[in-house]
């Protein structure tokens, strides 16, 4: 009886020491959690999550104050990745924060633009060029499609143009395989 107890105690002690040593030896210096969450977020900086940017949202998630399903531009995949990282159950996107939509970039109608610079101040990534009383224009490649410039524009000269599909950005589609035999007449294009 006593022997068994000693063996158990000894084992527990030995294993504990081993675990302690390996924890010290194989310590993994990971990125801080906020940075890892921020890496998943799409960096649209749109504020749809209820926070004034992606980094604040990432901070809030890390602190456990925000849910993982508040980022429409990140889409379903983003919510899944966040759930994965945070080790929580996946949740579908919260519709309160908006729905995912195809990527679009802002476009300024230069005939209407009065050069008020309000959009320039609103742009979170400095993707709008121009100066006071001069026409503004958007650097399409740097626009994240956050739509933050739409509301401040006093003359409604900014519209969101969906990014068109070109042979350059075209993607192969998910193969559609009919499980039922196709009728003989309509089988081939």
């Amino acid at each position, binding site marked *: 009886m006593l022997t068994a107890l000693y063996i158990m105690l000894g084992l527990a002690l030995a294993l504990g020491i081993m675990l302690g040593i390996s924890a010290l030896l194989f310590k993994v210096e990971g990125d801080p959690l906020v940075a890892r969450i921020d890496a998943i977020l799409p960096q649209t900086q749109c504020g749809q999550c209820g926070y004034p940017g992606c980094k604040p949202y990432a*901070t809030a998630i890390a602190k456990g104050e925000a849910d993982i399903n508040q980022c429409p531009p990140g889409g379903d995949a983003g919510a899944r990745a966040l759930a994965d990282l945070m080790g929580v159950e996946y949740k579908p996107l919260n519709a309160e924060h908006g729905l995912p939509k195809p990527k679009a970039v802002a476009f300024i109608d230069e005939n209407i633009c009065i050069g008020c610079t309000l959009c320039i101040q609103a742009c979170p990534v400095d993707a709008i060029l121009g100066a006071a009383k001069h026409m503004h224009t958007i650097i399409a490649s740097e626009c994240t499609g956050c739509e933050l410039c739409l*509301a401040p524009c006093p003359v409604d000269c900014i519209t969101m143009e969906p990014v068109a599909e070109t042979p350059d950005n075209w*993607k192969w589609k998910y193969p559609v395989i009919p499980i039922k035999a196709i009728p003989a007449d309509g089988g081939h294009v």
Partner: protein
Amino acid sequence: MNSIIQFASKLIRGQTAETANVHKFHGGVHPEGHKQLSTTLPIAKLAIPEKLVLPLRQHVGYIPKVKVQVGDHVLKGQMLAEAEGTVSAAIHAPTSGTITAISDAVIPHPSGLPDMCITLTPDGKDEWTTLQPVDWRNTDKKALVASLRASGIVGLGGATFPTHIKVRADGKSQVHTLILNAAECEPYITCDDMLMRERADEIVKGMEIVKFLLGAENSIVGIEDNKPEATAAMTEACKALPDTSVKVVPTLYPSGDARRLIHLVSGVEIPHDKRSTDVGIQVFNVATVLAIYRYFTLGEPAIARIVTITGSVNSPRNFEVLFGSPLQTLIDAAGGVKAGTTHFIMGGPMMGFDLPTIDVPITKAANCIIAATPNLFAPPPPAMPCIRCARCADACPVNLQPQELYWFSKSDNFEKARDYNLFDCIECGCCTYVCPSNIPLVQYYRYAKSEIIAADKAKEAADLARERNEFRLARIEREKLERAQKHAERAATNKAESAKTESTKVDATKAEEVKAVPATTESEKPASSTSADDAKKVAIAAAIERAKALKAAAAQAGESQKKSEVTTADAPDASGKPVQTEDEQAKAEQAKKDKQALIAAAIERAKAQKLAAAQAGIAPKNVEDASPAVKAEISEIDAIREKAKQAVKAQDSDSEA
């Protein structure tokens, strides 16, 4: 164990001594060749069509820059578009004529999407521009490569990689062996075969030039054993070139894949993350070498290629076709299609794709056009579940595990797919060819690859956006500090001197440079305070009218035109605008009253919009239970927003006063 099996299978198959010294690769399949269809007739020249449509995107890499305008008359061989960026290729006029359009048209691409094309209407004279042959033996190699960059020559085997990149010395590795890819392993395609039968001498002369450019000592011609005539012709012609041998490889698809061919003829396995030049080998296609020969000795740029037209046409054969020729003219020249033809395939049946319509031009990539009928290419039966039979793994020339890749691609498990070397897949189609369950495996890999590439691009864009956002926040912070400092300084100077206006002016111009609103409003203060109330109201009404009218007009005018202008042309222009001259300021003074009223009206509306937005719940929320750190961050950004609002308000109250 494997060697015993291989020995036994060699005995059973009765392998010929001729192909015994090649280094076999794993897998591969034996699709029926159908090559005799198009080899009975010699290569013919396709007549100049009534219209040539030249897509700008005919190669891998950047789109070339158009150098002509609609209405220009061009000569045969004249450059229409110039290579731009490192990996790019020029486009030349295939015949003399007039440029009649530069617009979007459907291009031969699996997407079926339109792209920018130059349309040339031939004048029928077929008049050459002044050709400038190059004395390559006595010219500096750098100059030769630069000259090749203007030739428009790309890999004509189908990969369409700009050739000048391939002969450019990278200073890291020395190429010792040139391998001529004459395997042509895809069924139906015979353009290289016919070229070797008819123009072996010119090909070998081209090899000589390429060898010189690369500085290679040896060259090997790799031909599949189903082309005895071409082998004989090339063996004869190669006698003229020292250290050159013709190596016959067994007919086994995909032996024409560059890495597979290198392994076959030299036994070298190119590491997956390296290029063949890193181990001193470079591979060129037969037709590419011939094009190089014609460019250097005759001065002719890339304006035509050999195209196999086969399948369900009345007289399948090979044609020399000018780039941009409509597919229809090629079909007509081949005697038209047989009854039951449903569509056309560009490339071979293993790796080609359905052409979206018959109204597409022949491009540099078009090595073969197959008229397809449901009889020739039966629609696949419905796919069954994978039974893990691993026939695909046995057939894979890269020794991948296609059944695993399928599983990962199907379930969007892209990380795992990448781990299992999805990007080593050459999309040869062997796996689908042998799949008993009729699963379109390659399609899954294409899908997964393009999703991964798109995700990588999105990640890059996100990283850029993060960087720009962080930079912006830092800049705002810095400006805040600077302003506070300025304020303090100004207060100090105010006490000491009475030169008040001077400092304001300086401040204003400085602030304008960094596009901050407070500065803008400050500079407008004196003017607005003098304006009368009545005049302002009238001006507001007028301004709103004008804005509305402008908007209506803009809506009516073609929007698409503007779009393209903005994204391309205007961006650099706009960046030059912040620089203001005195003249401009004077001009602005004139229109100031109007403009100011307009701004006032606009701001009114902006406020209303913002209010509406706040009511709709766009403004930040969920902040009640946030941690101090988050709150601090939010309040910081809110402060910035508040400042902008203050500025707006200040202007408002000013104009009302």
